[in-house]
């Protein structure tokens, strides 16, 4: 059910511009791996490469042992903002991956309504994206992504455009919703606290590759916030983040 990624000596970037070199990374099936890093360090590029939207510029990028050559419904992506189709209602947006898989209409509709209920928008199904708040739109996007039953979910700063309060609520919702899916999750953010709350492991990405990977003690348990173990994990992440890369 869950997908595993294996990256070896990978170079990432757009065209001739290389953003990351010598990247080695293993994403274990079913885990939530959060990637943090300064802006412009290649986090989004990494996700787009895993999604198959960008070719890697060298090395091998494998999903369950097979090279990634293009996008696949196995590896769905949640974008930062405005990825919903504005002319479709929330429900019809969530139905889209099901329509692509040619699932019959009544079943499509039921599944979409069920997922909208899961993200707390059961009563907003008929609304168009512009009638929803930013947080609601991201919940619809999450429902749409999960409705396609992907084996991996790639999330590109999905809460980056939200205010702090909505952001906190969205993080709790995500943690709740992820309990019901076996999918492997790769989550990109620049927020270390978000990373420590959501992830099983947190990787620090830099142009020279992965600097460190920290195991999160007691992942997704709000009660552990601020305990010595989590504080220690936070310190080591921050140290890795702000360490100067060797010239």
């Amino acid at each position, binding site marked *: 059910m869950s997908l595993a990624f294996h990256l070896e000596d990978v170079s990432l970037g757009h065209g001739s511009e290389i953003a990351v070199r010598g990247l080695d990374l293993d994403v274990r099936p079913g885990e939530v791996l959060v990637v943090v890093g300064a802006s412009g360090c290649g986090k989004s590029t990494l996700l787009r490469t895993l999604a198959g939207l960008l070719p890697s510029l060298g090395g091998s990028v494998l999903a369950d042992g097979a090279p990634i050559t293009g996008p696949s419904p196995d590896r769905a992506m949640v*974008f930062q903002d405005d990825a919903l189709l504005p002319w479709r209602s929330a429900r019809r947006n969530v139905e889209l991956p099901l329509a*692509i898989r040619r699932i019959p209409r009544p079943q499509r509709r039921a599944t979409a309504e069920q997922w909208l209920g899961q993200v707390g928008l059961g009563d907003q199904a008929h609304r168009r994206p512009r009638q929803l708040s930013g947080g609601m739109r991201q919940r619809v996007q999450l429902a749409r992504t999960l409705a396609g039953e992907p084996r991996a979910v790639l999330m590109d700063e999905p809460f980056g455009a939200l205010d702090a309060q909505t952001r906190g609520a969205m993080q709790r919702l995500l943690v709740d919703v992820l309990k019901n899916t076996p999918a492997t999750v790769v989550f990109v953010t620049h927020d270390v606290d978000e990373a420590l709350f959501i992830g099983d492991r947190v990787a620090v990405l830099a142009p020279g590759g992965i600097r460190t990977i920290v195991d999160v003690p007691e992942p997704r348990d709000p009660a552990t916030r601020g305990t010595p173990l989590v504080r220690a994990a936070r310190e080591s992440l921050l140290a890795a983040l702000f360490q100067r890369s060797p010239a």
Partner: protein
Amino acid sequence: MTTAVAAPPGRTRTTPSPKRPPGRQARRWLIRIASLVTALLLWEWLTVTDVTAWIRFDRLPTPVEVAGQLWTLLGDPLYYLDIAQSLVRILTGFALAAVFGIAAGIAVARSWLLSDILQPLFEVVRPIPAIALVPVAILLFPRNEQGIVFITFTAAFFPILVSTRHAVRALPAVWEDAVRTMGGGRWRVLISVVLPGALPGVFSGLSVGMGVSWICVISAEMISGDFGVGYRTWHAYTIVDYPAVLVGMITIGVLGWLTAGLVELLGRRIVGER
């Protein structure tokens, strides 16, 4: 402590805008009608009193004369035949232009190969006014009728092509990326993202195209027609029947307005509220 709290932005968007008071709507319609009536009265006054102040109104038919002519023509089957003829020409040319213009616009915007093949041709042909194609149309097509449709087609084709191309190129890449990561292929992206996403732009092209089509169908009829509103108007001019010329002009105006309104209505129906 304040008791009133500003509504969150998400809420304000969903509340419907307050309805305008009906009295104000009625007043606006009154102004619109008064504007037309005033123009007619001014025309009547200028022509009845034979105003000649550098521009001469003494030979222009009065609105009453024109109305009389219109009344006569309304009882003449030929008048309707002309209208039908022009409508058939314009709708055929326009429909062909819509199909080919939208298809070519999408093709050029989505494929670099097709863009390299077609774009140079389009750029060279586009600046030629469609009406300048009359001599070529006469050579190319066995029948006059087809030539006129061809000219109407060419006139509407380019505005539709250009608007579609722009609309498709302006689509946010994230919509396509999202559909592709759901497993959608080229066709799915075309049907679920490109076509609906480009529709507003396509319809603005159709509106412009409809306007240009009228200009060209009337001009083409004046030059080479043997039926149609344009031909009839020109014919009236050659026999110095000025009231009939003005009836022709008004007919063209009303037909143009109706067809443009139809495109607009269709656009609002299909594009809907976003």
